[in-house]
């Protein structure tokens, strides 16, 4: 873990290869997550509302508390691990500090909002159906941007 507190990644080709493959897999994860979101009803607030609150026309029922909690539980694990690992790699990559900070804060905020917007739609107000696609985009685009920036930074080292 010393690699995350020093910047000598250029002297460690094995670690560099590991980072590159991890970031490539992460980009595939973002693509997969977008496809999953699309298959669950799409990105519009109306489809998100129908997914969580049910739709009489489509004979779908509102999501139960157990399903909502399981969704929060799994999303929070993936978001936490991906966020910390990607931010740690971004920290050692060559890029402007200010840009790194903006990405860390915006992606983290997007992750938190994405995790909590499902239960908010179901138990607080349907108006949060606007927050879910926005936070989804912010979180996953942020992960993409951090991955691409890190790959570019690693290529320069």
């Amino acid at each position: 873990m010393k690699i995350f507190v020093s910047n000598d990644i250029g002297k460690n080709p094995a670690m560099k290869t590991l980072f590159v493959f991890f970031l490539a897999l992460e980009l595939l994860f973002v693509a997969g997550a977008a496809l999953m979101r699309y298959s669950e009803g799409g990105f519009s607030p109306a489809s998100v509302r129908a997914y969580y609150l049910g739709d009489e026309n489509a004979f779908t029922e509102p999501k139960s508390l157990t399903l909502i909690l399981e969704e929060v539980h799994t999303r929070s694990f993936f978001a936490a691990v991906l966020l910390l690992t990607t931010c740690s790699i971004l920290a050692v990559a060559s890029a402007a500090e200010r840009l790194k900070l903006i990405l860390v804060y915006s992606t983290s905020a997007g992750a938190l909002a994405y995790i909590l917007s499902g239960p908010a739609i179901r138990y607080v107000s349907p108006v949060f159906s606007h927050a879910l696609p926005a936070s989804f985009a912010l979180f996953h685009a942020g992960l993409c941007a951090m991955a691409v920036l890190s790959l570019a930074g690693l290529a320069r080292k």
Partner: protein
Amino acid sequence: MKNENILKPALAFFMVIILVQCVSGALLFGVKLGFTPESVAGFYLGAEEKFMRPKTFAGLLEVTVPHLCAVGVVVFILGHLVPVFAREKKKLMNFVLCSCFASAAGDIFSGYLVCFVHPGFAYLKLFSFALFELSLTAVAFSLICACFGGFPWKARERVEQA
């Protein structure tokens, strides 16, 4: 330490999301298993009045395998961050981390003991889960405090030293 400006906010958000996961885990435990030994035993062994069937070995494995991976990863990440960011009370933090791993193992495997050995192991399930949640929350809280300048009860010491 280099890269602190990037790592500290990332770590703080990581801890907050882990706390969200702790809360959702506790709520899921309450909704699915309940917080009494009778309800935990009923979840695993089945309950005719609630039309619940006993858990099968394959069904238990479907929950065990992802939890073994996820819990291992999360506690490992927390464990390796403690000596870097939270250097105070090393022995206490080591004890809390060990209890994290031990209680996680007890929580994960006690389901099998309830199903295939004796329903009395429901007490072990409840105790292990509670200990795991408490120790994970304690480590997450310590690391959040470390990110924001130290434990709140040490604020007076810091002011005096300044």
